[in-house]
């Protein structure tokens, strides 16, 4: 009889992977919440390798010629497309799978991220070994990009629920790992390629296999270390009622309603403006400092400058996000934009008076705020929309990052080229760009100032149903709690 046989077949099948379910990773009494940030870091340090993908750029363009590009070798432009696919699929997968993650829990998401990220490297290795560019795009770009998106958002809601008293610091720690991943990935990839290089191979596909395996295991370890707090758990001595700001809610907005609110649109623009400005500079940092200070800054010194910016990016993630716990998210973003506008407008002056330390210092601070913007946004979302669906809401907001990843570099490169074409000396070609980037930050500043607490009608009622959309959300909200 179907009514009997179906349940008897289904449970064993569904139980096989039940150890990944949210219900199975509820922390027991005495669990130390400080075990969760290292789990998140294990995943973010792995996927952060995406920022160091450029180390493969040159070897991938010499896969046939070995010592120099030969006929049939991929061009730098073709290889650079991988990074764009990374960022686009990061945003798409985070947006699409964010709600699924809230339902099934962070361990499922972490395991899937490990499979995609590690598996993506294996597919890409096959692509390099067989010299099939589409396999490289599919492996590193599409599959890896999905792993990137899932891995990026998987710890956010978990950490926010474990650290309701220090949301900014908690998410800052994880997102700092994403910046730090490049610092580990770049020298690791470089060392492995040197080891595997032979007269007939640049050693990239072998490096992909080793790195894919290492990252798969590290991410799996992180995913299995995840625990979620028991319903109603709060840190000892802390109460949600202690929140004083009207910008911090104790209720929840369903993800389906959150993205329809003006606050979501405003924060989308805030993130997009902050990231567009920062990513444009980061991408062009090395040639920019050499062109502005022509003759006095070598290519080697410029590489050192890029390294310093990476450290600023990482430091800003934990530093600014932790500070936001004290001064509030809105004030933190106000600082990013107000200070950012002043600093971008100061860059042409630093170039004109040929003051290299001032120039480096300005960009160091700018890049701390770029990183800080990423790390503070999940806590900003949790403050406005509640912690219950923050992972899914954050996932949808990351489409702003994907957009900025295309806009920022395009803006900086196009503006510079138009200045050069108009006969402006290379040393002054970035001046107009800096004013345009400052203009982007003005838009972000205004949008941030317009952010107000979410209207009552968007919040879910006590029984877990969504009052705004008119559709019952009891089932999904209960399963996500």
């Amino acid at each position: 009889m179907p009514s009997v046989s179906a349940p008897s077949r289904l449970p064993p099948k569904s139980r096989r992977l039940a150890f990944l379910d949210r219900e199975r990773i509820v922390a027991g009494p005495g669990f130390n919440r400080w075990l969760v940030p290292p789990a998140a870091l294990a995943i973010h340090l792995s996927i952060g390798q995406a920022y160091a993908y450029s180390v493969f750029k040159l070897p991938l363009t010499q896969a046939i010629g070995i010592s120099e590009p030969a006929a049939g070798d991929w061009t730098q432009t073709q290889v650079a497309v991988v990074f764009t696919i990374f960022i686009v699929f990061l945003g798409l997968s985070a947006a699409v799978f964010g709600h699924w993650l809230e339902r099934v829990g962070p361990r499922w998401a972490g395991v899937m991220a490990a499979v995609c990220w590690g598996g993506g490297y294996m597919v890409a290795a096959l692509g390099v070994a067989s010299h099939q560019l589409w396999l490289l795009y599919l492996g590193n770009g599409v599959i890896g990009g999905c792993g990137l998106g899932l891995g990026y958002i998987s710890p956010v809601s978990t950490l926010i629920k474990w650290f309701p008293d220090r949301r900014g610091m908690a998410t800052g720690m994880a997102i700092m790992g994403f910046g730090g991943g490049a610092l580990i990935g770049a020298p690791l990839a470089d060392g492995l390629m040197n080891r595997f290089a032979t007269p007939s191979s640049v050693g990239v596909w072998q490096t992909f296999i080793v790195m894919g395996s290492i990252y798969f295991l590290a991410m799996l370890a992180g995913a299995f270390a995840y625990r979620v707090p028991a319903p109603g758990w709060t840190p000892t001595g802390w109460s949600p009622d202690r929140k004083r700001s009207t910008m911090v809610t104790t209720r929840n907005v369903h993800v389906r309603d959150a993205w329809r609110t003006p606050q979501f649109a405003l924060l989308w623009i805030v993130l997009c403006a902050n990231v567009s400005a920062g990513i444009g500079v980061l991408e062009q940092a090395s040639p920019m400092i050499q062109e502005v200070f022509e003759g006095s800054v070598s290519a080697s010194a410029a590489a050192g400058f890029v390294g310093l910016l990476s450290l600023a990016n990482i430091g800003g993630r934990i530093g600014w996000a932790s500070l936001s716990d004290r001064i509030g998210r809105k004030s933190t973003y106000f600082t990013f934009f107000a200070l950012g506008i002043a600093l971008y407008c100061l860059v042409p002056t630093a170039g004109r008076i040929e003051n290299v330390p001032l120039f480096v210092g300005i960009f160091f601070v700018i890049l701390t705020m770029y990183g800080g913007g990423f790390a503070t946004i999940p806590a900003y979302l949790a403050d406005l929309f509640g912690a219950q669906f923050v992972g899914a809401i954050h996932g949808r907001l990351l489409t702003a990052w994907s957009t900025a990843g295309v806009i920022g570099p395009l803006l900086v490169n196009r503006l510079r080229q138009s200045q050069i074409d108009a006969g402006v000396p290379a040393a002054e070609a970035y001046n107009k760009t800096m004013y345009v980037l400052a203009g982007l930050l003005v838009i972000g500043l205004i949008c941030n100032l317009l952010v107000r607490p979410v209207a009552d009608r968007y919040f879910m009622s006590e029984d877990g149903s969504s009052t705004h959309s008119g559709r019952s959300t009891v089932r999904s909200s209960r399963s996500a709690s």
Partner: protein
Amino acid sequence: MPHEWGSKLSRNRLVVIAWTAVGVPLLWGIFQTLKTAVQLLE
């Protein structure tokens, strides 16, 4: 089923091990970056 998490001492030891596992590679990466930056600037 949630279980009791051992003694306080073993829980604290686990936290130290977990942080060491992620902290050491991160510090190694920062050190490598600084080393390269200094070498290049020299």
